[in-house]
């Protein structure tokens, strides 16, 4: 449904853009319909940048994003509007997603003005009501209220309902439950699982491994803008290969087992070159003989639908 082909985002920093910062570095993956793909990374990994590039909120420096086979990297005007009819997003902070001085319904009215200017009031009301019901809320309870009168969970469902007003096929869910309370977040997550069953493709951006495991078919592990490992969620979680993924798995607090003690590496031992493996400085198995410090490893398919970018695990390396 949607595929990224060596998508890169470079920011120019320093006086007159003297230095460049690669927030996203040649990331490629596909998302099929009826599937949730988790994009997992820590802060600064570039995961939200990828979501925003898909939503055309940030421009792409190089590479291409294809939607249903069509290059959508540089849309504008009506074509972009048509794209938004199919592709929508929900963001992390429910309170920041609403204009605080207007009622929450405004997110619906905006969609109506732009996409359904000719629709009759009654028909529109039915459409809104059915969208709200399909995200498990009672329209009477939530319509006509100000954002601060609704809970975070309700606000996030509201945004999903907004997306459903359009004919969406693809949803970018950027950390949508990380700011919700434990008792309500799981219901929003379940809602995504329901949407998936309706044939939607979803990019679920998260830093939380357990959420990713709960919801997704495929996972992409991102480190400093580069894909470290990706493939079927099952395979990655039961059999992590990249040292970074392994470290993540060992550090995540779980409820079924305690941490293995043994300190996690916090300080870098040696700095590699910018062209080297992004994980080089923290990697316990890095090896200069393999070129870890000088060349960035490319993704290799070690088993069907399981890719890793690490010289240690190259098939014939």
């Amino acid at each position, binding site marked *: 449904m949607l595929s990224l082909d060596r998508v890169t985002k470079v920011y120019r920093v320093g006086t007159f853009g003297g230095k460049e910062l690669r927030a996203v570095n040649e990331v490629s993956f596909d998302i099929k319909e009826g599937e949730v793909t988790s994009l997992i990374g820590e802060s600064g990994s570039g995961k939200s940048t990828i979501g925003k590039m898909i939503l055309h*909120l940030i421009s792409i420096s190089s590479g291409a994003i294809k939607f249903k086979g069509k290059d959508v990297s540089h849309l504008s005007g009506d074509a*972009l509007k048509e794209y938004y009819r199919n592709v929508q997003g929900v*963001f992390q902070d429910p309170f920041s*997603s609403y204009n605080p*001085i*207007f009622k929450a319904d405004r997110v619906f009215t905006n969609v109506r003005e732009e996409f359904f200017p000719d629709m009759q009031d009654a028909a529109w009301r039915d459409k809104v009501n059915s969208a709200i019901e399909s995200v498990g809320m009672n329209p009477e309870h939530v319509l006509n209220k100000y954002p601060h009168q609704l809970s975070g969970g309700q606000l996030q469902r509201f945004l999903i309902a*907004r997306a459903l007003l359009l004919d969406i096929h693809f949803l970018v869910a950027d950390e949508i439950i990380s700011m919700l309370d434990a008792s309500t977040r799981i219901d929003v997550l379940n809602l995504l699982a329901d949407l998936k069953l309706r044939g939607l493709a979803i990019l679920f951006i998260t830093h939380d491994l357990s959420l990713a495991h709960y919801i997704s078919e495929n996972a992409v592990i991102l480190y400093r803008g580069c894909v470290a490992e990706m493939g079927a969620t099952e395979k990655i979680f039961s059999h992590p290969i990249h040292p970074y993924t392994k470290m993540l798995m060992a550090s995540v607090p779980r409820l079924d087992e305690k941490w293995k003690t043994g300190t996690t590496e916090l300080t870098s031992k040696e700095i590699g070159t910018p062209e080297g493996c992004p994980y080089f400085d923290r990697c316990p198995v890095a090896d200069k003989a393999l070129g870890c410090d000088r060349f960035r490893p490319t993704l290799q398919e070690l088993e069907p639908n399981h890719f890793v970018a690490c010289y240690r695990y190259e098939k014939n390396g």
Partner: protein
Amino acid sequence: MNTAKKNEFLYFALKNWKLRIGFVVIGVFLILALIGPLLVRNDPFAYANPTGAKPPSSDYWFGTTFFGQDVFAQFVLGLRATFLVGILGGGLATLIGVVVGFTAGYRGGIVDEVLNMLTNIILVIPTMAVLLIIAAYLEVRSIFAECIFIGLTAWPWAARAIRAQTFSLRTRDFVDLAKTSGMSSFKIIFREIAPNMMAYLIMTFILQFGGAILNAATLDFIGLGPTNTISLGMMMQYAVMWGALLLGMWWWFIPPGLAITLIVGALYVMNVGMDEVFNPKLRET
């Protein structure tokens, strides 16, 4: 706007003594400026009192000038000029500031760099010096020209402040959401961002209002004010020029300066009051 919130603002606005004082002072002077000239029997420029200077009396409330002109008549006319300069000059400065600030803050990137550079340059230049040199070369100066010059040189402050505000609002998710609703930039700025900044824009205008009045007073006092009317600054200029100080004619120079001080002071105090109303953290408990 949210009715509950609106009432809350109104409640705090009425409770805030700074706003109340500000409004009363501005109101009194505004009324004086509007109806004052109607009450005055004497032409402000006519040499009404043939005996020349006279202290305040029932005939001449604020006394007369060295030449016997009615100070009160000049004062109320000067007040009009002051309010006019404040509203037009301050308004123009705010307007330019809004356009530049919104554009720079919302667009970002190279547009922002250029506008920001321009803003910084004009901020460094002592605007009064520029105003002086322009005014010095103009033979006939009207109060409207004065407003325009002041507006054209005073906007960088407003632009900087509005840019910063726009910048922080622009990164809010509701702007991204509006974009993915296919809204145009223009629509997003005026329908999503601007309404959130109303309080801020009003406060900017208040400060520009006061700044324009002070700037005009300086220009007028140096002798570069409008050539076809009287203003509070010009009254002070004439008073000093014709030796009101040495002659002890305090009624000639105290009222205009005091009026400016009170008006601008009231504006500043109002500004603080508004900040307290709209910024709950600052509210007095």
